């Protein structure tokens, strides 16, 4: 899957290079946003359809964890992104903006490239895609150390694309936290991007 995703970008780059010029960007932006709106709608249906899973986690201790983990992801991601600006040379605010994608590379790259710049949108795409790609390797490794910590690299993807891997590596109990973590983060990404783009 990851290979297909990367391959599609390379094909897109080749087609763009061969057949398009900069004037095609607004049309590409409109197409991107329409496709993204549809994906958001389908993601919403998946979230709404999984309420039984959410009911199983309603104990005070689990609730505290379910709140703390996404909060930790936001603070850790934004903090890590902030400190990276000392090495990368990207502005602190721009680094935090990229970090606020929380692994949702399709949404963050489109929003940032449309509302900020294509350059930062490209960085957002690669940085957030790295989270997902590396998670496929890191989740099984980290689960051997501690089950809950294996959710950390995934970010927003822990709700959908990475959930089967979490179930396999760490079991259903951890997977419930993985789902809630991804769910809360998926709802937070558009809000964080909106706030940071203002």
């Amino acid at each position: 899957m990851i290979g297909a995703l990367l391959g599609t970008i390379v094909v897109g780059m080749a087609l763009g290079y061969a057949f398009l010029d900069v004037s095609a960007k607004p049309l590409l932006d409109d197409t991107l946003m329409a496709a993204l709106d549809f994906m958001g709608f389908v993601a919403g249906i998946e979230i709404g359809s999984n309420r039984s899973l959410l009911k199983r986690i309603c104990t005070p201790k689990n609730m505290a964890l379910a709140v703390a983990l996404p909060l930790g992801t936001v603070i850790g991601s934004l903090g890590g992104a902030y400190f990276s600006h000392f090495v990368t040379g990207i502005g602190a605010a721009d680094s935090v903006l990229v970090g606020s994608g929380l692994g949702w590379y399709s949404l963050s790259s489109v929003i940032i490239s449309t509302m900020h710049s294509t350059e930062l949108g490209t960085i957002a795409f690669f940085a957030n895609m790295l989270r997902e790609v590396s998670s496929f390797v890191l989740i099984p490794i980290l689960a051997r150390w501690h089950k809950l910590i294996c959710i950390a690299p995934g970010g927003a993807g822990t709700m959908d694309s990475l959930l089967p891997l979490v179930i396999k590596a760490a079991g259903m109990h951890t997977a419930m936290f993985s789902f809630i973590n991804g769910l809360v983060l998926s709802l937070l990404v558009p809000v964080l991007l909106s706030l940071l783009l203002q």
Partner: protein
Amino acid sequence: MTIIILAITAGIVLGLLNVFNYKTKLWLNRFSTVCLFIILMCLGAKIGCDKEMLNKVPVLGQQAFILGSSAILGTMGMFYVIIKLLAPHFDEEDEAE
């Protein structure tokens, strides 16, 4: 941005109301995957059609690697603290269940 939030909200409401049957959801998911590839293709085309931008990809990739790795490490650090505070015996309890 408003439209995507409205789209997600509408999806959640329709999901909660269980409006779509399994077959429809399956087709919606398949089309959603097609949309993902359309998005990636357009993102690639956006980079490819901008020759100036294309020359910057090696540098941008390096910056993205550092930024993404830092975000992962930051999150892992926060998770470590949270687990120590709220669930130090999570794995043992999980094994017992």
